[in-house]
């Protein structure tokens, strides 16, 4: 299986012409290519999730509107959230993990390049699988939080919830593999001299995120499996009439769901922590404190899940405890914000497009963070929970925060990834539209929440006073849509049609290793691994007379080629069989009872697919994947 690909492109010479065939992309194990695959997949799903959001906003433009049906509306908000969280923000973060981590720590690839490819293919199958339910049983309509017992077979017959459960299980699998891969990479593949506290902040935040992923995804996976059992085999984990407890699902879900919030925001915080010092031409102020506050956020993030459940009646002691831990998260968050401002203070700030997006992140994230402190107080939360106030809050955190931070990363790292700048004018237009749009769409939702408008409602009544602000929000959503499309069009023109100014290796006068090599980096990243002596090795070389790390200085006498792992078909094959294995659960599912006839069809199919997985595993092990 691998023979066709093994003789391609693993001898990477300096002058080597990039192989751009389809085969080379399907079999790639290069972290930079996988990063690009993640990035374009994420941008595609951003557009899809945005389309769903536009339909939601159009439906809410007028009171008692009939633009889309209640059923469609429920599918739209379910898929909008699921898409944005699992198929857009997480993979866009993954794009940066993949592309940047090896470059920032001075490695030639991740620790397990083939596992990395498997993560991507599983992600893609999971994402497509989730959306394919559209063609079979309708899109999932249980909300991204899929609260039991409504998502059990009695109230959600058919297969759409099964698609959701299995899709998320596949995606979780992919994320966990990537998590272990990056942890290993960061802990083991740092270049000589790169101590933990000389690592760039983005890599640090990524490390925290990987730990969050590998510790939180097992919990939702367990929750999803129990739900699958309830739906397919008639177990009663969440079914109250037979002694199950729907709150069990909420605990398992939010034990995952709250760390997930930090999985979404910490990469953006890492990116912003890279960009602000470059913009101010100073080091990051208090870097160890920024790092420890990130670790602190990740740590405490596991102890706050029940603040999503204040209205379920956990009792005053639990409410008080979870309220306290939740508010404590404000402390490391505030430390980060103060350090970002202190980084800018005393600098010579250059207002480039990525810098402006990064500063916007700080501003918008502050709003989202502060409204979050408000409903950390359970009595206040009783009035805000499940109202549009919450919608406003987490859109400020996720759109104003995570999305804006990732956009700054797109503009900042694009020249490194593709060798050409993203168009600056398009960047400014996009920023203006997004800034107006985000505030116009999401700020009025605070008001709507205070007026008592509940979330996830297909219609709102005439005479409730919700009309004006909903219209404003709908208008704002189009600003966001156009703003995003401007960047998307500019990115596509840049990557596929060669538009955009050529970028040098170090377009922003930055400090870390990734800027000391060519743009785009060669297949092997570093011809000779640099030895670093500080947390800003490249800046020190350029401005402080520090030891050289850039390739043009240190790699003059390096050998003419570098050995890299060869491409492989096994990850794709493994992903296909694994995806199929999960999908086959559909055959028996959805009835709420164990159906022996259908199970006897499901079982042999799954055994075949499991054999396929084993075959791929065996081939994977037998394959000579040593760098050649």
């Amino acid at each position: 299986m691998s023979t066709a690909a093994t003789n391609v492109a693993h001898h990477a010479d300096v002058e080597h012409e990039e192989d751009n065939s389809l085969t080379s992309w399907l079999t790639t194990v290069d972290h930079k290519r996988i990063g690009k695959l993640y990035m374009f997949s994420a941008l595609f799903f951003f557009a899809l999730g945005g389309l769903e959001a536009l339909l939601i906003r159009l439906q809410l433009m007028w009171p008692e509107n009939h633009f889309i049906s209640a059923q469609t509306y429920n599918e739209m908000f379910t898929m909008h959230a699921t898409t944005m969280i699992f198929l857009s923000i997480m993979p866009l973060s993954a794009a940066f993990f993949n592309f940047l981590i090896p470059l920032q720590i001075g490695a030639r690839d991740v620790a397990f390049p083939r596992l990395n490819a498997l993560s991507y293919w599983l992600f893609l199958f999971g994402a497509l699988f989730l959306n394919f339910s559209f063609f079979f049983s309708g899109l999932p309509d249980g909300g991204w939080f899929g609260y039991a017992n409504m998502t059990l077979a009695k109230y959600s017959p058919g297969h759409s919830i099964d698609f959701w459960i299995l899709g998320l299980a596949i995606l979780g699998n992919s994320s966990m593999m990537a998590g272990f891969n990056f942890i290993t990479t960061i802990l083991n593949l740092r270049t000589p001299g790169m101590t933990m506290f000389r690592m760039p902040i983005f890599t640090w935040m990524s490390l925290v995120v990987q730990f969050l992923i590998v510790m939180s995804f097992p919990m939702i996976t367990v929750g999803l499996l129990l739900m699958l059992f309830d739906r397919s085999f008639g177990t009663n984990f969440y079914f109250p009439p037979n002694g199950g407890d729907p709150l069990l699902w909420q605990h398992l879900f939010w034990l995952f769901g709250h760390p997930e919030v930090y999985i979404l925001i910490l990469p953006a915080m890492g990116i912003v922590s890279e960009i602000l010092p470059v913009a101010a031409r100073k080091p990051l102020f208090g870097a160890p404190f920024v790092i420890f506050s990130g670790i602190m956020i990740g740590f405490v993030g596991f102890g706050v899940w029940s603040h999503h459940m204040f209205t379920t009646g956990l009792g005053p002691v639990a409410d008080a405890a979870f309220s306290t831990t939740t508010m404590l998260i404000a402390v490391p968050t505030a430390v980060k914000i103060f350090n970002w401002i202190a980084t800018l203070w005393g600098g010579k700030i250059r207002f480039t497009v990525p810098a402006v997006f990064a500063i916007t992140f700080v501003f918008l994230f502050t709003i989202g963070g502060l409204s979050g402190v408000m409903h950390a107080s359970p009595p206040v939360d009783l009035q805000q929970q499940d109202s549009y106030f919450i919608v406003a809050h987490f859109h400020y955190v996720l759109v104003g925060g995570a999305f804006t931070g990732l956009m700054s990363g797109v503009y900042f790292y694009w020249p490194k990834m593709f060798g050409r700048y993203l168009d600056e004018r398009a960047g400014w237009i996009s920023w203006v539209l997004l800034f107006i749009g985000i505030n116009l769409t999401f700020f009025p939702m605070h008001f709507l929440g205070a007026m008592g408008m509940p979330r996830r409602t297909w219609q709102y009544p005439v005479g409730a006073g919700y009309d004006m602000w909903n219209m404003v929000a709908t208008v704002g959503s189009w600003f966001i849509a156009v703003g995003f499309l401007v960047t998307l069009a500019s990115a596509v023109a840049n990557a596929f049609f060669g538009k955009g100014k050529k970028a040098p290796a170090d377009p922003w006068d930055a400090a870390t290793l990734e800027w000391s090599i060519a743009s785009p980096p060669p297949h092997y990243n570093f011809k000779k691994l640099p030895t670093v002596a500080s947390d800003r090795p490249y800046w020190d070389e350029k401005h402080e007379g520090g030891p050289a790390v850039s390739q043009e200085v240190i790699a003059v006498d390096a050998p003419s080629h570098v050995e890299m792992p060869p491409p492989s078909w096994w990850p794709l094959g493994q992903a296909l069989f694994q995806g199929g294995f999960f999908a086959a659960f559909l055959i028996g599912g959805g009835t709420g009872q164990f159906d022996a006839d259908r199970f006897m069809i499901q079982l042999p199919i799954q055994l075949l697919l499991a054999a396929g997985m084993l075959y791929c595993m065996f081939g994977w092990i037998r394959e000579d994947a040593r760098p050649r």
Partner: protein
Amino acid sequence: MKLPSFDTAVRSLVLTVLGATGLAGCELWPYNNGQYPYTTTDPISDFGMYTHELYAQITWIVLVIFAAVTALLAFTLLRFRDDGQPGNPEQIHGNTQMEIGWTLLPIVIVLFLIVPTVRTIFVIADAPPAGAIDPASGLVMRDDAGEPVKKTVEIKVIGKRWWWAFEYVNEGIVTGNQFAIPDDRPVSLLITSDTVIHSFWVPRIGGKRDAVPGRMNRIWFNLQQDVQPGEVEHIRGECAEYCGDAHALMRFEVIALDGADFDRWVTEYQAGPKLAGDVKTKGEAAFAAGGCIGCHAITGNDQANGLQGPNLTFFGDRRWLAAGVHDMYPNGRSDATHAHDLLTQWVRHPDSLKPGTTKHDEESRALDGMNIPVDRSNDGILQEDEMSTEQLDAIVAYLLAQTSSYPIQ
């Protein structure tokens, strides 16, 4: 140092001011009951007021922090713009004293948030008193036998797909989508569900509580607004937890009455509507023949004792159809035609007024093994041959005629 350009300065300042005032408006906006029937900022119960006090306090703290951080950020951006001069700024790596300072500062602020929060949590978690409190002694007012004079009204709230059932625990009254409360004694609501998870929310009374199957949550309160005898205060409520197709259309109304009025309301509802003549005889017959009795109960109609659907006793008292969704009397009580037409449409083709209604009907009937002669097999429409216009008219007239002495305006 070069001064920041005028446009940048203005832009930043305008943004700051807009943002700060916007957030301020969020909570301090006068969302009064008149224009905003679901407002969270105009509470009329003690429970709501505890929350509101804390809400306002935290909002102010948060606004001040926001203004300070934004001002600091805006100033930094204006003051430290690249001046175009060669050379790099001073390379400062950090300052431990400052780090300690801005770690302690948020801790102190958080303390100011946590202490009143925890206090309020325990205040609203207290068990309700047995009856109304005498303001002079601070004790429950009791008669010679030791019984509370104005006993706490206990109501069990049950979330359904997609409507609400209210069961008066001591009075034995059951209502659907509308219930009455007195203004002179505590009201205790026991919230649960026998379907999926819902959330019971009357923003003007106070915060929401989830209706979780298999669990019982409680909120209790005293109305702080004095309702005049003979008058009715309407308070709107809604479902706040996503519960399926018609989650958006699962509202209800609380009618607050003067204490003495409430006692008479109870007596009347316990007795059931007093109907006579054709409306009663024809209506009851049609109600039974149409299969309505299988799911709906009406006090005083011995055949009608179904438990699946909303209790329809004194249906004529209700202003809203289909769980607080459609106004039956938009032109006032005198115009009964609209109510008649709307109710007819509701029985004939419920999905046209509220999506998902028949779907769930079919679900629950199939699952509970019920065999009801109502057949909406043709696209969920009850056709003429399944129920004649004459029969339906009798049912509609029978329902709308059931008014108590507290009809809704």
